[in-house]
């Protein structure tokens, strides 16, 4: 140990004062994530508010952490939650298990499940970290109606999928 070593150490500290600061002042300074950051999931809706989820469980199947639980249900004429025969009656994601890999998003055949950039997923209660369908469903935008209700945008589910992008655009126009 040399005589000048303490000085050297102070030198490092001193020189750092003139460098760019990397520390984020969270939560006062809330910075946006990268656009494709894998945050909390969202269950999307069709432009009329019907759910896109068909309860197929492919997300649960793809999940390497076994974080997703799905149970399908049968749409009836009186209670319709999604276009077509089937909807997700029960949907739960356990964020204590989720590793944010996004394989569920790739598996989803209806683009129902996507990820938002929301990352504030910490709690002191394990039960609250199991998100249910109510927590995960996308908010109702203008023009949307809370299911159950009849199909507003077509005769059958084919119309919803084939004309999906166009409908979404139109719905956007209406909203504006």
């Amino acid at each position, binding site marked *: 140990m040399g005589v000048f070593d303490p000085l050297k150490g102070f030198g490092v500290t001193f020189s750092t004062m003139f460098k760019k600061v990397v520390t984020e002042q969270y939560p006062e300074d809330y910075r946006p994530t990268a656009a494709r950051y894998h945050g909390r999931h969202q269950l999307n809706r069709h432009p009329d508010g019907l759910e896109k989820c*068909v*309860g*197929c*469980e*492919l997300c*649960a*199947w793809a999940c390497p952490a076994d974080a997703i639980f799905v*149970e*399908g*249900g*049968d749409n009836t004429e009186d209670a319709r939650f999604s276009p*077509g*025969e*089937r909807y997700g*009656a029960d949907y739960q994601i356990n964020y204590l298990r989720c590793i944010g890999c996004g394989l569920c998003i790739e598996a989803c*055949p*209806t683009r129902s499940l996507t990820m938002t950039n929301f990352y504030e997923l910490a709690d002191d209660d394990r039960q609250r970290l199991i998100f249910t369908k109510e927590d995960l469903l996308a908010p109702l935008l203008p023009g949307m109606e809370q299911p159950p209700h009849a199909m507003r945008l077509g005769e059958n589910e084919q119309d919803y999928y084939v004309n999906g992008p166009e409908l979404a655009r139109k719905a956007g126009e209406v909203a504006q």
Partner: protein
Amino acid sequence: MTVAPEKSAELVVPEGHVKLTIDGLEVVAPKGELLIRTAERLGIVIPRFCDHPLLDPAGACRQCLVEVEMGGRPMPKPQASCTMTVAEGMVVKTQHTSPVADKAQQGVMELLLINHPLDCPICDKGGECPLQNQALAHGRADSRFHETKRTFPKPIPISTQVLLDRERCVLCQRCTRFSSQIAGDPFIELLERGAQQQIGIAQEKPFQSYFSGNTIQICPVGALTSAAYRFRSRPFDLVSTPSVCEHCSSGCAERTDWRRGKVMRKLAGEDPEVNEEWICDKGRFAFRYATAADRLLRPMVRDADSGQLRESSWTEALRVAAEGLAKARDEAGGVGVLAGGRLTVEDAYAYGKFARVALRTNDVDFRARPHSAEELEFLAASVVGTSPESGGVTFRQLESAPAVLCVAFEPEEEAPIVFLRLRKAARKGRTKVFHLGQWTSPAVDKTFGTLLPCVPGGEPAAIEGLFFNSGTAEAFEALSGSGSVILVGERAAEVPGLFSSVLRLAERTGAKAAWIPRRAGERGALDAGVLPNLLPGGRQVTDGTARAEVEQAWGLAAGALSAEPGRDTDAILGAAAAGELGGLLVGGVDPYDLADPELALRAIERAGFVVSLELRPSAVTERADVVLPIAPSTEKSGSYLNWEGRRREFGTTLDGTGALPDCRVLDTLAVEMDADLFTQTPAAARANLERLGATASTRRAEPPAVPAPPAPGAGEDGVLLATWHQLIDNGSLQDEEPNLAGTARTPVARLSAATAEQFGVVAGEQVTVATERGSVTLTAEPADLPDGVVWLPLNSGVSRLRRELGAGHGATVSLRPQARGGNS
């Protein structure tokens, strides 16, 4: 030293076999074997949809194409290996070695997928779908078909429990072939031609078959799906546990699929000796009774002050039960035990041992239905202890028997798998089936059978008349063939003299007699000694040697077991109603199944102390002093004995629910009464039963010898009632299953045209059948019954004969047309 590899010895071709080459491997196959099976034996998988080993070959889907060379000359086109039989010198190349076969299979797959909707995410078959798997394994990555797919409205319910999606169908015809060949209910058929070809049903004729669930299981795509299981779960969610059906005495192997502590569905298991690959719809769909909202989960004790049942701890309930039973045993004339016919062997053994050891009585009976002393003798003399190992009648023997006679036994309604075997045997033309019954029921038609008509109660006289007086009768000659079988059903107990006549007939013809009870637990309870005259292993109560064996094994003092046969169910109830019995211990018994429900209810009310072991509230629990909840079959292990005497063991499906099997409850109750049963678990009970072993006593029970009474008549004003249970009826194990209930046969009153005319009844209109207890009104339907006889289902819809009429098979009832617009 190097040794040259020895040339493999030439394959020896036995008589009746041929040698051929598949994918370069030489193989010897029996003549007539299908190529696809021979390849399977070699471990070569050829993709297929329509082929099923238990159905006749159809060659409908063309997925199994292979290249075949005969005598050095290749066949011009690839051949379907599921319809082509093996031949000498054949050279077969499957998709593994032949690019031609591979291309052909890919082409077929592309064609099959042209109109397939590819809606796997919403299809119940997704994840266990042969089409999905084979499209991935043998299909092309993309389709060249870009036009519009053919569509159909979907799904359409073809019965309340089967849904049809025609878009997904690949027209393999497994369902139609199953229905017409195996079940004999051809309600589902191919319709239309060409591109519009589709599976369908006739208008207004739903797919009402007791076996329709099998078509869901064998459908290789998601075209037929179950209404009850619709969208419930995916194969990867499910834990599959092998199990045994708890409904009838066939003892079918099943696969129970469950998720998160709840049974989702049941599928047929595979057991070539018993159910092959089929089960009936009751076995498949009726399982939700165990999760009914009213299921008993906590013990209940009747509160002394309020007179109401209140929930209690196990400790309290067992103490109260033990004290009450001990008091009734010592001070009030004894306790009778009614075990019920749905117990596992282990649980039944615990009931029998509890009666003998803790209650010190032979008043124990499992028969929760009409019964007779003659039946007791019959069971003791010729049923108990028989098994496939000891040469008893088996399913396989039914298939090879030259003739089978069903006496007071309706196979399709009471033991559907026996019916399937009979139909299979008869369809092959080997077996002649005779039914001694009242009318040409669907089962008679579907087993290509001959009806030997008789009036209800006239079965013994009919046997004597048909077989003894005119010895040349066709049926008698057929039954004299070696290996013939006589099957006797549970309602024989309602006909005096019938068991004796059957035994006489068996002796005369050399045919073997077998008893086929309706409930799963009856045969096991018989062998476990839950009868007033029998100890476990067929030991007779009156046999000193046998008693000594049991006393020694159970650690009792010599002479502790009574030598006096006890009372049967009716006598126990009669004694209790008369105040002679101080208490009753009742297992799963529904009083409305008994010959006299009013007497049963009166007896349970009069008996000083009643302990009920039940799954769900019943007429017994309402009147019991202590109610102890027990486990349904999915929540315990154990074994049933099926009608053959074959042991059908099953493990616990849902573990850790806290529900206790009967044997455990009785063991603890006995400990409270200072007696040890050693039946803490089903395994312990089984070990305890096995330690008894076979008896050394050589005494055989005397077969019943009741002379055949003359055929009864109903007098001037009345008619004779013929009745039996239908498979799908008001039974409590079918509760909570609306889809299954929708496929029940409509209850109707059947009678002959002459009887209808005599009483002024018009076919298609309401008719009232009455006794002094009450009446039942149903639609009249003409059938080929003997005159002066009316047939009603025993417990279907409004036709609850024991409850409403207090009458059973062979009773005299009155008949009158229901006035139009009158009260029903």
